[in-house]
C-alpha cells in the first residue's frame, strides 16, 4: 500500500487551524510510509472564505497530493468563486483577485511538475519522503524542530515557507532556513540569485513579507532542479 497508494486527511473543516494542521498531518503520513498524501484544500466542512481558500491553495500546491474538495451543503469554494479584489486587511495590492493568486499558485505547481514527478519516482524506487519537516534533513539543528507548520522541505531540492497560521497581511514573518544557501524559486521563477539567503555559517530566521499573494519556495544549494 505504501508504495502505490495515496491518501487524504479525511473530512476537515474550513478553519485556519485545520490548514496549519494539514501540513503537520502530511508530515505524519511520511512517517507512516505514505508519501503521496494531501488534504481537502479550503476544508471539507464549513464555509471557506477567500483568504483562507487562497492561502490553503498556496501551501496545498506544495503538497504531494493537491485537491480542492468540498461538501455539497456548504458554499462553493472553487477558485473562480473568489474573483474579487484583495481587501486591505490581507494585501496592499488591490488590482489582483484571490482567483489570480490561486491561479499563480497552481501554475507554479505545474512549472515544478517534472521535479515532482521525478521525486515521486525516486521515492517509489528508493523509499523516503517527499513533503517533510526541516528536521528530517537537519536533525542536528534544534531550531529545525520548531514552527514546522510554516517551514517545509519539498523533496531533496526545495524548501517552502508559508504563513499558515495567520491570514492578515504582515510585513515580517520569521521563517527558518537551516545551514546552507537558499535561492528563491517562487515568487521569482525561474530564480533571482541576487536574493539568495546565505546561511552557510549556520541556520537562522529570515524575515519575509506575508501578504496574501506571498509565499516562498527556495532551492537548496547542491541541487539541480528540472523545470
Amino acid at each position, binding site marked *: 500500500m505504501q508504495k502505490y497508494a495515496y491518501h487524504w486527511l479525511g473530512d476537515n473543516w474550513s478553519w485556519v487551524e485545520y490548514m496549519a494542521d494539514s501540513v503537520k498531518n502530511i508530515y505524519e503520513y511520511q512517517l507512516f510510509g505514505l508519501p503521496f498524501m494531501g488534504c481537502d484544500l479550503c476544508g471539507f466542512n464549513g464555509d471557506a472564505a477567500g483568504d483562507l481558500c487562497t492561502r490553503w491553495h498556496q501551501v496545498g500546491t506544495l503538497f504531494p497530493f493537491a485537491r480542492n474538495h468540498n461538501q455539497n451543503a456548504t458554499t462553493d469554494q472553487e477558485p473562480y468563486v473568489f474573483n474579487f479584489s484583495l481587501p486591505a486587511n490581507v494585501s496592499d495590492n488591490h488590482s489582483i483577485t484571490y482567483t489570480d493568486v490561486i491561479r499563480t499558485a497552481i501554475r507554479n505547481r505545474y512549472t515544478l511538475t517534472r521535479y515532482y514527478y521525478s521525486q515521486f*519516482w525516486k521515492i517509489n524506487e528508493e523509499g523516503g519522503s517527499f513533503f517533510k519537516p526541516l528536521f528530517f534533513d537537519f536533525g542536528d539543528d534544534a531550531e529545525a524542530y520548531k514552527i514546522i507548520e510554516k517551514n517545509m522541505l519539498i523533496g531533496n531540492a526545495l524548501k517552502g515557507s508559508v504563513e499558515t497560521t495567520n491570514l492578515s497581511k504582515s510585513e515580517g514573518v520569521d521563517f527558518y532556513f537551516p545551514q546552507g544557501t537558499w535561492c528563491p524559486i517562487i515568487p521569482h521563477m525561474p530564480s533571482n540569485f541576487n536574493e539568495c539567503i546565505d546561511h552557510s555559517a549556520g541556520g537562522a530566521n529570515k524575515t519575509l513579507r506575508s501578504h496574501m499573494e506571498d509565499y516562498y519556495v527556495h532551492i537548496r544549494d*547542491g*541541487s539541480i532542479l*528540472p523545470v
Partner: protein
Amino acid sequence: MTDLIILPNASNGINNTEVDYRPDCSAKGTLYFDDGVSYKKDVTKLQVFYSYISEKLGANSSIV
C-alpha cells in the same frame, strides 16, 4: 523541453561518489521521464551531476 536550475555548493563535493575527484563545487539531481501514454510506463532515469573545477589548467565546468 526541460530546463535545469543548478545551484552548486562546496560541501557537496565531499560526499560525491559519482566522480573520482573533488570539485570546488557541485550539484546533483535525478530526473525521471516516461513516454506519457503507455499503461506500463517506459520510464527513463537520468542522474545529472554538475561540477566546477578551478585548479590546474583553468576554471571549467561540466554537466554529466
